[in-house]
């Protein structure tokens, strides 16, 4: 993480040089100054953190009501949740928001350990339709209903 910050800083400093400075700029300071400043801050803070880590001062993971720091990190669950969000994003356009949302909810709930599986699926579908009805139907937020619910007026179709 600290390495990433450092790398981003170096990138910022390098790229800042290639931002076109208009010669007729109204101000004395053009669009490059701030990027240089931010890049420098990134490099300094990233570097400092890196040195601290190498000296053995690691960051403390954040606590929370539902977090158990003693249990170790379950990367698989986090990865699968991320996959659920990605699938959701790609389903919105072809299948509509309700279907995509039901998939996200059901998928995420199952990944997180909801049992029985059918209940997670049913709740997902119900929630997706309810949210679609409230936001698209009542509040006029234009969520695409998708081919299945096209023309259903309470779902904004």
């Amino acid at each position, binding site marked *: *993480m*600290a390495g990433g*910050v450092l790398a981003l800083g170096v990138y*910022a400093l390098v*790229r800042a040089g290639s*931002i*076109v*400075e*208009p010669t007729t*700029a*109204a*101000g*004395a*300071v*053009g*669009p490059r*100054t*701030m*990027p240089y400043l*931010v890049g420098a*801050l*990134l490099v300094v803070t990233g570097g400092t*953190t890196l040195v*601290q880590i190498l000296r053995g001062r*690691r*960051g403390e*993971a*954040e606590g*929370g*009501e*539902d977090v*158990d*720091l003693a*249990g170790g*990190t*379950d*990367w698989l*669950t*986090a990865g699968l*949740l*991320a996959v659920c*969000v990605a699938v959701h*994003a790609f389903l*919105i356009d072809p299948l509509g928001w309700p279907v995509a*949302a039901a998939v*996200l*909810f*059901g998928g*995420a709930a199952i*990944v*997180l*350990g*909801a049992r029985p599986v059918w209940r*997670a699926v049913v*709740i997902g579908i119900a*929630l*997706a339709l309810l949210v679609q009805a409230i*936001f698209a139907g009542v509040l006029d937020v234009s*969520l*695409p209903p998708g081919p299945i619910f096209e023309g259903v007026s309470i779902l904004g179709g």
Partner: protein
Amino acid sequence: MDNLGYLMDGFATAAHPQYLAFAFLGVLLGTAVGVLPGIGPAMTVALLLPITYSLNPTAALITFAGIYYGGMYGGSTTSILLNTPGESSSMITALEGNKMAKRGKGAAALATAAIGSFVAGTIATALLTFLAPISADLAVKMGAVEKVSLMVLAFMTVGALLGSSVSRGLSALAVGMFIGLMGVDDLSGQMRFTFGLPVLTDGVDVVVVAVALFAVGEALYVGALMRRGPQEVIPVPEGWRTWMTKDDFRRSWRPWLRGTIIGFPFGTIPAGGAEIPTFLSYATEQRLAKGTAKAEFGHGAIEGVAGPEAANNASAAGVLVPLLTLGIPTSATAAMMLVALNRYNISPGPLLFDDHPDLVWALLASLYIGNFLLLVLNLPLVGLWVKVLQIPRPYLYSGILVFAGLGSFAVHFSRDDVLLLLVLGIIGFFMRRYGYPVAPLVVGLILGPVFENQARTALTISQGDFTTFVRSPFAVVVYALLLLMLVGSVVLKRRERALEARVAADRPLEPTG
């Protein structure tokens, strides 16, 4: 024109049945979502942003005022009834509150928190009502140089003073500023840091970043580190008439007032968050405790709940002073309020009181109303909040993901925003995993561009002379204050750490498995 008259007008607006309903809705939603574990007030506002897309500004702001106070309040219920501390601002409440609950005095702890929040919230809102216009008058006279100095103060306090690691806090701040730079530069029209991606041309929407960091990051993080096995919610005896005994009242009222006095000023200066005032209030009550109270400290003393909880709410109101009059958010939640205001093309700042007086005063009035509603709602509804606490975690976090997706999709109705949400959510996950605080990033993202504009304006006026930043006496005072605060915080932090270590040693490890 006297402000009292304006305030009365505000009350007239806010008391309109329609707006009253929105205040009610906001308070209810805010408390419900605030009670939910893992969701702090900032995330509450972030997740509920889409709801306001189709409301008029006054209705939306009133709803948000309710969510803001409700979210603050909801957190204390969680920390008292659950066996673990939540976000840092309610951690102090958990110290004594949870021990009281274990001793069967949970109802008294909840009651003193609720009434203390009401007392502190009302006094602090009154102070806000009279201070804000004065502060706005002062702010009108400020030039770019003065504003730059205040923003430096906000950056340093939010970045360096909050959280346990200075370098990590400042890293998060810098990353936020970097994200703020992406897209077209306002002054020159040049592209910056778009990585050649068309999505980034217009920059990254603050809503997407905030929802990603607060909601998606949290959901992924909890997914990876979920507590296995059931959470123990401490039962609360029924019958709210017997909640607080006379003795509890006698012991609570002074801490309420002291907490308010400590909390409000900390909210108003750009020093960010409720962490420091709640800790100070706790330390004060502990030192002042005598007799039984002294013996009870560490085992569930009511003063240790009443004081910090009042300080927490008073600082929440205080935070609104710099937010409304200067446009400077000093906590993650205030940053989200700013985002909500920007949605309606309202930029908080010195001119807000002149440009939108009706709106500001309706907002202030609805804060009083919201506060009152909270008091009325929370005591009788505690049974409901306990049920909310027991929502199965898989469904809770799946729901958070769905609403996060909805919130970011609704920004431009584009799939790419949802993908951006995921990428930033993964960054949020790693930040939590490796101890980087999230709030500085959001503040850097929001204030970074404003800071750049003001700094460039100042430099244009001075024709490129950088010493202009220390020529103004006001700015010099601000920088001196900043130095003082940095020194003071080192001392405070040492003491806080000692306290935390002591508390951690007291808390028995919970069974896992």
